[in-house]
């Protein structure tokens, strides 16, 4: 059932992704930086909010006038800041929503990744009140509607003896203290919880991507600035509690639930909000359970080089004092609570080399469900099958749809837990031992890697920028990094494969000598 939901969601996301892939390089694709973009929008909100705070006056009589001054009199700066504040807040809702959907449909929320998922839910519960209290402070007709409806919602919580909504019956009974309270929540209380919540959300990740690339930040800021200039945010009429606003320009990003308060009842709206939140919170434990087999360390082959520690994107490997008496100070240790079974540690391990012939291929760290020896066996089996024509061997992430298309087209595909699972010496191995003429690495794009850094580490290892590096003797002209998103242009993958095979055939005719292994 849940796999079916993921599959439908992936299909929908694929449709969304297609035009994005045509418009952006993977490094500049906003869909690869949804969480980081949200943080960037929060920076815009913070900076613009500080400017608004300088001129804002927290009282019933002066709040509206101070916002009007910013919007009308100081339109060139205050008005732009107000619009930026509002539109960046709205944009953040879009990026948050897409971020949540993406993590869900690509199944990055279950098993050991539950923590990041669950700690994201309070952030949503903080962001919405943050936006709603912001609308309240303007004290126009929309604020009046928001205040009354929010009070009706809060009154439904059965712990208050007096009605909060009763404070908004007339201008005479409304107190400035309400504005002080709202200003405190909007300016200090909720932002503090938000910052702490973001820290909690990412602190288990190794090297979390907090900021998007500079060019993307500049583009997003320019985008918001142009919108603010062309379509500045303005207030409704000043709030008047003796009258009821008739038609409102509702901000649907934040206030979409509010019409339901009138259409249903506050009780049903609470039921909806709590119900949806509860479903999201328990989603990681919904059956069927996702089985993860963590990496295992073989002390006899671990020399404590700590490359696995450096490359693990989830902080699941750490160095601990040696326990087996060998002449190394430390050894790798895997935390099964954090390991997502991506295999990036194996790709980083210098002992995971297929050239080993004197002893069995047991690296210092290995995956129980897809061992380094299994991968070598697969390579040898595919190599034995190849005919006299040019042969290109594909290494692909497990479950990659493009790899499946290639496999159905008769292409030899060796699957890995993640592209970063591939230790570079395997590429040298297949080429120097002439198991193949070319190697196509079919991984996810950088930002879309299911395990965060699989494609990036591979790119750097093959580019000889990161240990373990591809040997210098290996002809990189025979290697293609097929960083095609697994969600776009599926029909092209066979053509791309054929184009690369033709290139290899052209540049390296069959029979050409390949430098033998040493």
């Amino acid at each position, binding site marked *: 059932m849940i796999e079916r939901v993921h599959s439908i969601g992936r299909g929908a996301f694929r449709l969304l992704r297609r035009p994005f892939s045509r418009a952006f390089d993977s490094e500049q694709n906003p869909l690869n930086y949804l969480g980081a973009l949200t943080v960037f929008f929060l920076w815009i909100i913070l900076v613009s909010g500080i400017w608004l705070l300088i001129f804002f006056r927290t009282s019933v009589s002066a709040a509206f006038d101070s916002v009007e001054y910013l919007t009308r009199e100081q339109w060139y700066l205050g008005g732009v800041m107000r619009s930026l504040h509002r539109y960046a807040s709205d944009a953040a809702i*879009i990026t948050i929503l897409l971020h949540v959907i993406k993590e869900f449909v690509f199944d990055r929320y279950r098993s050991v990744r539950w923590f990041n998922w669950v700690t994201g839910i309070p952030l949503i519960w903080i962001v919405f009140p943050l936006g709603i209290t912001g609308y309240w402070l303007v004290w126009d007709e929309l604020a009046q509607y928001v205040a009354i409806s929010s009070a009706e919602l809060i009154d439904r919580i059965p712990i208050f003896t007096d009605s909060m909504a009763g404070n908004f*019956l007339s201008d005479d009974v409304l107190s400035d203290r309400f504005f002080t309270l709202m200003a405190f929540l909007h300016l200090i209380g909720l932002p503090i919880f938000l910052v702490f919540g973001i820290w909690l959300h990412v602190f288990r990740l190794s090297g979390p991507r907090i900021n998007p690339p500079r060019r993307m930040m500049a583009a997003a800021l320019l985008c918001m600035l142009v919108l603010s200039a062309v379509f500045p945010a303005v207030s409704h009429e000043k709030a008047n509690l003796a009258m009821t606003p008739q038609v409102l320009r509702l901000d649907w990003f934040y206030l979409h639930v509010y019409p339901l308060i009138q259409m249903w009842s506050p009780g049903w709206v609470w039921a909806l909000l709590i119900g949806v939140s509860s479903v999201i919170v328990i989603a990681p434990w919904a059956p069927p359970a996702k089985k993860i087999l963590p990496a295992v360390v073989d002390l006899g082959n671990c020399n404590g080089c700590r490359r696995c520690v450096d490359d693990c994107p989830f902080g699941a490997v750490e160095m601990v004092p040696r326990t087996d008496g060998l002449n190394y100070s430390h050894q790798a240790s895997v935390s099964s609570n954090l390991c997502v079974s991506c295999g990036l540690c194996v790709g980083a391990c210098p002992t995971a080399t297929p050239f080993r012939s004197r002893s069995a291929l047991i690296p210092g760290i290995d995956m129980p469900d897809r061992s380094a020896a299994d991968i070598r066996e697969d390579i040898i089996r595919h190599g034995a099958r190849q005919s006299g024509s040019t042969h290109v061997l594909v290494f692909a992430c497990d479950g990659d749809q493009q790899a499946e298309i290639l496999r159905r087209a008769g292409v030899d595909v060796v699957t890995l837990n993640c592209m970063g699972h591939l230790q570079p010496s395997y590429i040298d191995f297949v080429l120097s031992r002439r198991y193949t003429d070319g190697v196509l690495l079919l991984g996810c794009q950088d930002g879309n890697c299911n395990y965060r850094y699989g494609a990036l580490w591979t790119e750097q290892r093959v580019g000889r920028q990161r240990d373990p590096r591809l040997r210098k003797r290996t002809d990189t002209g025979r290697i293609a990094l097929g960083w095609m998103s697994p969600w776009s242009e599926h029909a092209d993958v066979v053509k791309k494969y054929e184009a690369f095979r033709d290139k290899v055939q052209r540049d390296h005719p069959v029979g050409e000598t390949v430098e033998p292994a040493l």
Partner: protein
Amino acid sequence: MRLFREIFAYALFAAIVGLLSVWPRYALVDAEEAIISLSFSHAGKRVGECRTLSQEELNELPPNMRKPTDCPRERHPVRVELRSGDDLLYKDLLAPSGIWADGKANVYCRIVVPAGIHEIFVGMNDGVIEDGFAFQNQASVDIRPGRNLVIHFDEQSQQFLFQ
């Protein structure tokens, strides 16, 4: 070409943000409608009579607890009815608040009505009287379109006020 696509993508994003931040518009009430807000808090009468303690009983109590009367905490629910002419707009039996049912009963409701002249009647019973109301008020009120007519019970004057 890719740059133009990129610019178009950001422009589309901005358009979606700008559009959904104000549109579609939401009609809270129609142009010829108004709101009647009924809101007040009132404590019902206690369910039993207060009993005057004898001097002997008072002597048995600690000095700081020697109240001359012993009253039951629980209060009656409050019955409220709001009508416009023959139309019943609101009717409820409001339970007292608090886990001992000794607090005030609260009512807050907003009712959409057509604008125009309304013969408003509001009544409240806070005791055991089955028929009739202990407090009531009636008035002919011209409610303009969009107006928010507030009806509340003033504890000081012990009467319903229309504002």
